[in-house]
């Protein structure tokens, strides 16, 4: 099992950041790499169990299922059903935590998955830097960060 962990500080109150990210169908609105997204079978995007089906800017298609959503903990857990990345048993969790000193947000994104050992480093880099960190950077910028 391989773990990728990325965290960042978003310069906005956690409730504001959570409004942006809790919508499981909203990746095109706040990440730089998702071109379009839909929820299969027209389900509401906050129905646990729903599946988002989205296309990356580079053309790849990914299907992910919402496993858990908590407005109390401000967290969202999902698994990959289908992707061009070649990962197995991929489960990821995005969590926001308020930072009381400064009224900003501590954001964490973690993924656990299986893959062939020789691909582990490339996948860690791809997911950690090009997906999670790129998304956090864009999110921070959208709230006036650097």
């Amino acid at each position, binding site marked *: 099992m391989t773990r990728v962990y990325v*965290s960042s500080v978003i310069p906005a109150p956690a409730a504001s950041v959570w409004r942006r990210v809790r919508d499981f169908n909203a990746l095109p609105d706040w990440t730089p790499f998702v071109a379009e997204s839909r929820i299969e079978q027209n389900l509401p995007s906050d129905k646990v169990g729903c599946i988002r089906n989205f296309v990356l800017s580079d053309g790849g298609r990914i299907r992910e299922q919402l496993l858990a959503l908590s407005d109390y903990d401000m967290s969202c857990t999902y698994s990959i059903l289908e992707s061009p990345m070649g990962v197995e048993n991929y489960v990821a969790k995005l969590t926001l935590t308020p930072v*009381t*000193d400064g009224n*900003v947000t*501590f954001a964490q994104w973690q993924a656990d998955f299986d893959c062939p050992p020789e691909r582990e480093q490339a996948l860690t880099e791809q997911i950690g830097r090009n997906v999670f*960190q790129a998304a*956090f*950077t864009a999110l921070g910028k959208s709230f006036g960060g650097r």
Partner: protein
Amino acid sequence: MARVRESAILDLPVDAVWHVLRDFNSHAEWHPAIAASTIENGLPADTVGAVRAFSLSDGGVLREQLLSLDDETRELTYCLLDSPLPLYGYVATIRLLPVTDSDRTFWQWESEFSPPPERAAELSALVAEGIYRTGMRALERHLRTRAGAGVALRVARAHVAPDPEPPAAAAHAPQAASAGHLPGRAVVMARHGGPEVLTLQDVSVPPPGAGEVRIRQSHIGVNFIDVYCRTGYFDLVKPPGVPGMEAAGVVESLGPGVTHLSVGDRVAYACPPTGAYASLRTMSADLVVRLPEWLPAPQAAAALLKGVTAGFLLHDVHPVRRGEWVVVHAAAGGVGTLLTQWATALGAQVIATVSDDEKARVARASGAQAVVIGRGMEFVETVQRLTGGRGADVVYDAIGRDSFDISVEALALRGHLVSFGQASGDIGSRPIGPMASKSLTLSRPNYGHYIEGRGMMTTQADRLFDAIERGFVRLSEPNVVRLEEVSRVHRDLEAGQTIGATVLAT
């Protein structure tokens, strides 16, 4: 049941913070509320079940027991055994998490307890503020002022990576020694010399210490003094070093004790020490001012130094009064344009000198009553004619050597020569005897002495912003050039090929 949860981001690597916090006996070293701490029965401080006895700064005593300690998740839990306060059933958890994209630490400190209901609010506030929030900031200060960290900060504060060889690597791989450092780019002057000594390098910018601010700079003002610094005429930048005294941007982070700024504020500064030619800079917060909403960063970076200069020359060095005759030399230059506009707005009558027709048009557009090309006897005659033979009340002179005598000539009795530059060369030594023939006053103001300290700088900046808002001075669009082209900008500036102000965009 009361629940308290406080959290903070510390500008330190998570392992450095955890190293201290996992020591159940360390509080007396860093928490201001704890005067002394011992572990009972001589147990090691990381023994689960160990009891620590605290003597509080106010004389009280309390005992706490370590319930769990987890080096894997960087988490520890403890409970209160005896306390002078009714914090019944108090169990607290400390948890640290790394901020992976900036090598910082997220610290959460929370607890649950059952206070008497009428004291719940008071005790919750005490725990949140007096214990947790105070403690988190105190530990950050404690760790950052320790000798090793201090040295690292000072080295990097020169804005040049300690080892100039692998700058690109430093930008992408934060090292354990560079707690809270962020990658940036800076124009480094390798030695004194021509424009070619300026090169763009990756640098590691330290987090702000006490009284400091780290600014993400969007625009940098280019001033002629930067050329003097580069050539070595002024000894303000020791190579290798970063030139520049003026920039605008956004506050990225603040050190302890800075209260007049907030993260995210749009700010600017115009002051020594040098180091402005950079995308990210850590500096003293005292001379950094907040920008009004309506003032764009490129204009601020272009105008703050020149505008503050014009402001103190017209208000502090010689307070210009309505009806006075004011001579401005080089009236189409950066400061000259602002002096002409502002003095006119104050009700003075400006006689401008310039070097050619094009610049004469600029001076007239700035409001000058009369414009003279050149600074010979024609200039003195113009002044005498316009003032009815009396002469000018004040002359603002940044030309220096070539204009000094003619400026004295043009002044009225009890007139004031304000000599604030030497574009034509050093003035050298002058006899002061002739000044008695008209009871003249001579001033040689130094910019730094009029922005000394936050109060003075704020006054100067506010006066400038007010003058801009009221239309006393009009800022023209600066030329915006990419930071990469800094050498060319210096070359053009020295060749006199620039019109208007130039700013570097990061």
